[in-house]
């Protein structure tokens, strides 16, 4: 594995290897000294063309815990705001000797372009590209589900588990990545959204079951995990995707009543940041079976695993 760009086509054994490595990384984070010397001398560049708090901080923490040097680059306040292109920015980073570039970009496919263009020689990790993919988020979601719901998680997939992904699927790269990854790991995935917030062609994917209201989905299945997506209003320009926020909450919001219809051991997930009161009620977000805060902690371990697997091995393997 040289880059981590998408979960589509990620082999099951590779995915499980990342999750197993993440479990070992998580264990090291309970030690007295949490820093490991593993990536000493490597440079990781966080290249963020789009706002992000948790993903950037999470990658930064992961790289630092492995002793890599971290250079943060955000489009705001840089030459990008003067009109510099992705290519020129990438060439600059290459000249600085980046061993890995963690890239978040508003354009779908930006990470792929960076990895295949030859502009940078290091590994490229996709930290979210447009509405396309966000592989480390899906991996941390899978890790969280596995940790909670699989009895002996080491080496295991998510076979037989049923996961609901609810909300703004159209704009969600989290949903994009989870759809592939969770299915690869053996889980059954149901997608719940208004037709206006579903990407074209999703009903043609046989591995995904589509529901148009949350109640319908809750009637049909006993879900082991329910993943609420953020309504991405910043991407909803120029068109109305639902009549009103109140109606969206009524049809797709997770509240106490709907939470009570979930099986007892089911976990509630959200990639954050949350719109409390819109897609998830405060009651659900703060419920004992909500793992939303834990997802953030697991994110560091999963990103440590990804950085380790991409950067630690011999360079001749490229």
């Amino acid at each position, binding site marked *: 594995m040289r880059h981590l760009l998408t979960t589509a086509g990620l082999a099951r054994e590779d995915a499980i*290897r990342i999750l*197993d490595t993440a479990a*070992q990384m998580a264990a090291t984070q309970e*030690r007295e*000294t949490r820093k*490991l010397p593993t990536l000493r001398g490597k440079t990781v560049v966080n290249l963020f063309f789009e706002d992000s708090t948790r993903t950037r901080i999470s990658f930064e923490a992961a790289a630092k815990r492995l002793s890599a040097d971290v250079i943060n680059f955000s489009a705001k306040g840089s030459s990008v705001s003067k009109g510099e292109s992705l290519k020129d920015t990438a060439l600059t980073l290459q000249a600085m000797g980046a061993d890995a570039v963690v890239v978040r970009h508003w354009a779908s496919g930006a990470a792929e372009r960076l990895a295949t263009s030859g502009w940078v020689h290091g590994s490229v990790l996709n930290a979210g590209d447009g509405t396309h993919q966000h592989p480390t988020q899906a991996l941390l979601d899978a890790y969280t589900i596995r940790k909670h719901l699989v009895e002996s998680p080491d080496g295991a997939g998510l076979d037989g588990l049923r996961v609901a992904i609810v909300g703004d699927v159209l704009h969600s790269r989290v949903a994009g990545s989870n759809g592939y990854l969770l299915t690869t790991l053996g889980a059954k995935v149901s997608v719940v959204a208004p037709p206006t917030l579903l990407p074209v062609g999703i009903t043609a994917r046989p591995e995904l079951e589509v529901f148009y209201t949350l109640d319908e989905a809750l009637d049909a299945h006993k879900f082991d995990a329910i993943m609420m997506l953020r309504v991405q209003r910043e991407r909803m320009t120029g068109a109305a995707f639902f009549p009103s926020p109140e109606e969206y909450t009524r049809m797709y919001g997770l509240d106490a009543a709907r939470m009570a219809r979930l099986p007892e051991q089911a976990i509630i997930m959200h990639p954050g940041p949350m719109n409390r009161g819109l897609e998830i009620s405060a009651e659900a977000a703060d419920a004992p079976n909500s793992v939303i805060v834990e997802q953030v902690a697991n994110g560091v371990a999963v990103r440590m695993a990804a950085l380790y*697997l991409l950067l630690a*091995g*011999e360079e001749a393997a490229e």
Partner: protein
Amino acid sequence: MTGTILGAPDISRAITRIAHEIVERNDGAGNIVLLGIPTRGLPLARRLADALVAIEPTFDSAARTGALDITMYRDDLHRQPTRAIGTTTMPTAGIDDATVVLVDDVFHTGRTIRAALDAISDLGRPRTVQLAVLVDRGHRELPIRADYVGKNIPTSRSERVDVRLLEVDGEDAVVLRRGENEGAGEGA
């Protein structure tokens, strides 16, 4: 000389002798913590713990035996394909102020032990660290020595020493093999 160097009875005798040496050197087993380096150091550490119990029945083998994975502390990570990370299990008794005995199968260049010493310092502060190995095959690259050695086996660099243990390989044996190419040594 190639072929089987140690058989099951030899390995068993070596472990018993090392256990006695540990007790003698440290005036008892009271403060001893055993840390096995995966893969094969771990079963050896467990056997050594059992041997200590035979000598001192008060030795709490479960609370004083752990596993120390050193993958992330290796100095040759970038020269080899990516390695899977093993499990580190701290003994429930902890390692602070204890006499930690590192246990490994083959003692070769000393680089594994160098990495293990770094790993230990991230986990706590033992009073002393000692090293027990089943086989010392020489060719040290660092100024590190073993405190307890099951068997010294002089080797050439091209030879391979394979330690096979019941728990991992289904049999107990130490086998010396002629290497296919120069410099391919097992158990660095």
